[in-house]
């Protein structure tokens, strides 16, 4: 089976969808001839033609607005927002338009667009190339939000997102585009080679939206994570030496509530890990849901490990980034409670 990194897996998904469906088209800043600043659309314009994959003006609101218009016409646009930090000029289009078109027109119009955008820290990108805005989108009814953590899921989720008839935002953890990262920034870089999830089948397959994956089974505590943090969680769990069950949520909306509750009811403990700042983060919602649905099973308070409530500071990359040490401390607190 072909071995791919996450960039190649995403490129492969786009390539195959362009080939299979003439209504799919790709646009965004620098995605055409150049192939995107992270190379995700490399070669697609040359292979599929100028109108299938092209550059746009630097106007994120314009990119989403035109994608909605095209979607309403019947196309399936897949747009790239160069960095998730730069999606905010498009916020009104996403919240007031994409997310509500179906509802307010009583199903007459809808916009099946897919928004791909690299997000997250660990790259010394400073405050405008490191943020994790998932909670902002998860809060918006009518938007689906997915986050892959490996090449196999990246391809399958992207295909599922493109085929979905509702707007889907796919946040791509750019720190793990080229290799898994467990939070130990002082150790040698890893590539995806040899990772089981780097084996990516050719041909169309789907990872369904709304299904979490159990990455590691355990009985003592449930760890909920997504994106880069799945890899950080694995190393933190190892280092803490606890029998933890790790769930990779993969999809925040729709959320796999059954998988979460089944796991927490089994383990009786829950630690939530995300890069985004803590207050009002997606961990708050997860924590509330677990408390509401698993209260009788809980043996310890739910813990959240997250970015600090400050902007992402360039000099303090690894002091800000919630690495394995912070998870280990939370796991110990939960186990010793």
């Amino acid at each position, binding site marked *: 089976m072909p071995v791919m990194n996450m960039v190649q897996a995403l490129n492969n998904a786009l390539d195959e969808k362009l080939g299979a469906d003439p209504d799919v088209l790709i646009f965004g*800043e*620098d995605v*055409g*001839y*150049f192939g995107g*600043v992270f190379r995700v659309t490399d070669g697609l314009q040359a292979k599929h033609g*100028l*109108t299938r994959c*092209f*550059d*746009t*003006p*630097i*106007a*994120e*609101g*314009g990119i989403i607005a035109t994608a909605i218009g095209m979607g309403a016409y019947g196309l399936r646009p897949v747009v790239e927002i160069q960095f998730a*930090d*730069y999606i*905010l*000029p498009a916020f009104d289009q996403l919240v007031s338009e994409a997310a509500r078109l179906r509802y307010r027109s009583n199903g007459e119009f809808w916009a099946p667009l897919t928004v791909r955008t690299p997000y997250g820290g660990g790259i*010394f*990108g*400073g*405050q*405008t*190339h490191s943020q994790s805005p998932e909670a902002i989108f998860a809060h918006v009814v009518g938007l689906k939000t997915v986050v892959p953590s490996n090449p196999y899921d990246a391809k399958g989720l992207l295909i599922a997102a493109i085929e979905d008839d509702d707007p889907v935002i796919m946040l791509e953890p750019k720190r793990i585009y080229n290799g898994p990262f467990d939070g130990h920034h002082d150790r040698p870089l890893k590539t995806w080679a040899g990772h089981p999830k780097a084996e990516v089948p050719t041909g169309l397959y789907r990872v369904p939206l709304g299904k979490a994956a159990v990455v590691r089974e355990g009985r003592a505590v449930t760890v909920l994570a997504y994106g880069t943090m799945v890899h950080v969680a694995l190393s933190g769990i190892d280092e803490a030496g606890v029998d933890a069950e790790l769930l990779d949520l993969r999809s925040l909306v729709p959320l796999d509530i059954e998988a979460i509750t089944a796991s927490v009811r089994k383990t009786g403990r829950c630690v939530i890990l995300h890069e985004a700042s*803590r*207050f009002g983060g997606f961990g708050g919602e997860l924590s509330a849901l677990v408390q509401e649905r698993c209260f009788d099973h809980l043996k310890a308070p739910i813990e959240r490990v997250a970015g*600090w*409530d*400050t*902007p992402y*500071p*360039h*000099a*303090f990359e690894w*002091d*800000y980034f919630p690495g394995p040490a912070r998870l280990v401390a939370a796991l110990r607190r939960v186990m010793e409670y």
Partner: protein
Amino acid sequence: MNNQPRLTLHIPEPPARPGDHPDFGGMKLPKAGETMRPDVDAAEPTMRDMPFGLIRVLDDGHNAVCPWDPHLEADVLHRGLRAMMLTRAFDDRLFRAHRQGKTSFYMKSTGEEAIAVAQSLMLDRRDMCFPTYRVLGWLMARGYPLLDLVNQIFSNAGDPLRGRQLPILYSARAYGFYSISGNLGSRFGHAVGWAMASAYKGDDRIALAYVGEGTTAEGGFHEALTFASVYRAPVILCVTNNQWAISSFSGIAGADETTFAAKALAYGIPGLRVDGNDFLAVWAATQWAAERARLNLGATLIELFTYRAAGHSTADDPAKYRPADEALQWPLGDPIERLKEHLIVRGEWDEERHAALQAALEDEVRAAVRAGEAIGTLGKSKPELGSMFEDVFKEPDWRVIEQRREMGV
């Protein structure tokens, strides 16, 4: 309807890609002196052809010609030349520092130095510049300490912004230099608001703001123009058209259809198009717009026509999307060379003095980098850790107080 041709989707493409011969032959370039100079207080409807001209002062023989010649003293030109050369020397040295792993990121302004340097020298110290990441020349022209720049780029213990920002996203209030953010276009309106505040207070300060030609697509650009027009804000709004926005040629921002200066027409404000590699032309156009603003006649949009001679940033390889020798073919030359030749023609400069200045500036930069390295390069030295939690608000709230305690700082 059926007898019409089928609709086709138009996607603009640049004239040359890697492997092609760059050809600027089709570019319509008015000669120096050809574009008229309206009176500073002329009514906007009388100057609606300005966006399609090109304000140039230096002719092919490096002489300054009317009507836009600002008649500057040699001393001012020497200061300009020095600041431009310093900017380039600094850019080259710090770009290499990135390649040597001393920092995470860098962006050069090579080929565009005349713009920020001329405007910085021309405007008053009390005016405010709302910069992009490509106007280092503004700070160089005002003598900003090189070591502070280096420390910011290394995010070390001496960083005046205490490690908060990506390299080169400076902030220097005392030098009339507003805080830069990575988000494109979002400060264009701040310049208008700042200028409106000056008018509200009855002061005499004006503002100047930059965006790249690619960024004119953002809503913030158009919103700022509307406000500037409606309130006749004393602001100079500049579009640095360096032909490229990362890998996207200017046609993706609309340059195949009209000029960037012409965006002013719809807002009823003057739109000047200026040879951005001509120090004197940039000075003269800025002076014109500044006088107009100070006369309460409102905003001017200036397109500075130039070429991004270097890659977009340390993360970019322009050979992937444009001919490698395109910069060399740029018909408006290099701003430093042109000012140097002009000074030589005026008898105010020569090759020996130029070479000596170049060597002295390189020494100055090297010394600053050494001093920065002695404090520490990225990751080797950091501002005090607790400072990470400061300035989120003026007074810290319980969240950062608790989290700071959790970190033990």
